[in-house]
């Protein structure tokens, strides 16, 4: 049985049409002891069928340890979004980006392919000024209508800076991690484990938090 019905399939096809360059999705999974790995694999299999510019590479978290290490994958299911040259920009989805989160997933695919809204010069300057290693984790739930905005902002920052990595974390899939960061409202953004905020913030304001790290 497929995850997407015909209507969703058509919508996704349409949404992916403007892709410029190829994008490769790398999935880290395993067959046992991972409840959502199978669905995530199905999801990526189906979505990569919907555009000839999308490819899927599947790695086994247990046996392909070197690959997991290379991309900094520490839990599964994990999706790493790579550009047409298979370069890593530090953009990951931990958990299946279903529900409302499909929007942040499509958005970063388009942006990674080269279709992106230009950022104002002052913001680009601030992003280029970041020299510390920054790790952003955005905790979300799939029923939250404005969570994709928080994820997209974090991913865009990662795309523009080699020093920034950004993860979407589906809170129900990674419960211990959500508990560790006291996540009880989403979206909750945690930066290097020290700075945090609940809700969505525009890019400039997220930079305010990053600059405090």
């Amino acid at each position: 049985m497929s995850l997407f019905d015909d209507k969703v399939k058509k919508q996704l096809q349409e949404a992916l049409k403007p892709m410029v360059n190829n994008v490769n999705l790398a999935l880290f999974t395993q067959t046992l002891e991972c409840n959502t790995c199978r669905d995530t694999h199905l999801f990526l299999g189906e979505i990569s069928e919907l555009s000839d510019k999308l490819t899927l590479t599947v790695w086994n978290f247990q046996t392909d340890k070197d690959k997991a290490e290379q991309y900094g994958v520490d839990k599964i299911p994990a999706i790493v979004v790579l550009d047409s040259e298979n370069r890593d920009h530090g953009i990951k989805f931990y958990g299946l980006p279903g529900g409302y989160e499909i929007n942040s997933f499509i958005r970063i695919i388009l942006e990674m392919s080269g279709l992106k809204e230009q950022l104002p010069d002052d913001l680009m300057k601030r992003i280029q000024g970041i020299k510390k290693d920054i790790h952003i984790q955005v905790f979300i739930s799939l029923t939250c209508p404005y969570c994709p905005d928080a994820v997209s902002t974090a991913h865009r920052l990662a795309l523009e800076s080699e020093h920034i990595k950004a993860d979407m974390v589906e809170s129900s899939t990674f419960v211990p991690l959500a508990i560790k960061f006291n996540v009880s409202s989403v979206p909750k953004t945690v930066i290097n484990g020290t700075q945090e905020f609940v809700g969505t913030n525009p890019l400039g304001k997220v930079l305010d938090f990053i600059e405090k790290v």
Partner: protein
Amino acid sequence: MEFNLSLSAVATDHRAVPMDKNKVYDVIIAGGGPAAMTAAVYCMRKGVAAGFVTVDIGGQVGETSGIENYLGFNYIEGSQLVEKFAGQMKQFEIGLSEGYAVTEIKDGREKEVVLENGDRYRAKSIILATGNRWRKLNVPGETELTGRGVAYCAICDAPLFAGKKVAVVGGGNTGIESAIDLAKIAEKVTVIQILDRLTADKVLIDAMQQFNNMEVLLLHEVKEIQGDKTVHAVVVKDTVSGGEKSLDVQGIFISIGLMPNTDMVKGVVELNGFGEIVVDCSCKTSAPGIFAAGDVTSVPYKQIIIAAGEGAKAALSACDYILKE
């Protein structure tokens, strides 16, 4: 599994520019919802120099899941409608500041808008469309524990309370909708209502009867929210007997309605008893050159389509004012 796709193509043709501190704008629009964005489109089409200052683009519409009463769309997701509004606005070279709330409005022949980060922008006229925010309980513990068990969006945060005990404050439509969303997944839901009955629509009250993990406390009010890193308990008071008791819960969802964002204009324009900006039928406030539109005003019925219409009217009134000045 559901997929709530709402993405229109990534807009690459946006022409909005950053706000300019040295410029005197014809009109500055404060707020980011349908009233503000409609006002922006009308102002730009009239050819006046407009600035747009907002915390976020979309306002409450961005937090709404399905909309079925904005004409032209049988059904549209809130975030999708916001993208359409924003796309139409950003096709103009409008001044834009996003992320910082307006903290002060200074009236005079030349008016000034002060933002929370200290930025100041000047204009000949102002349109206030700052909307509403969730009403707070104003009890000890609420602010400290917000995002740590105190929550305002049940559809967003319900999954985080699977198997836990939660309280919902408010017996209106939002409160009961929240309680139903939570009852599907939480161990127990306690609805706390200050009145002697629930005020939600009958369909919702009927729907809540099917859950046996729900309890309703009528004539009770919240006195305190307790916890350290996260919420542990809520202290409620029986308003008849005066007796207090502590409920053992890990979360509390507050659904007691909305309040207007008018702190920045207290003493500048006339407000009514609800704190809303009083406007006449052409969106004029008590201060010449300051206009208001949408949910922040005394206009009844908080609806997207009404806010948008009021935004158009406020823009036309402001353009008229600029011309005559």
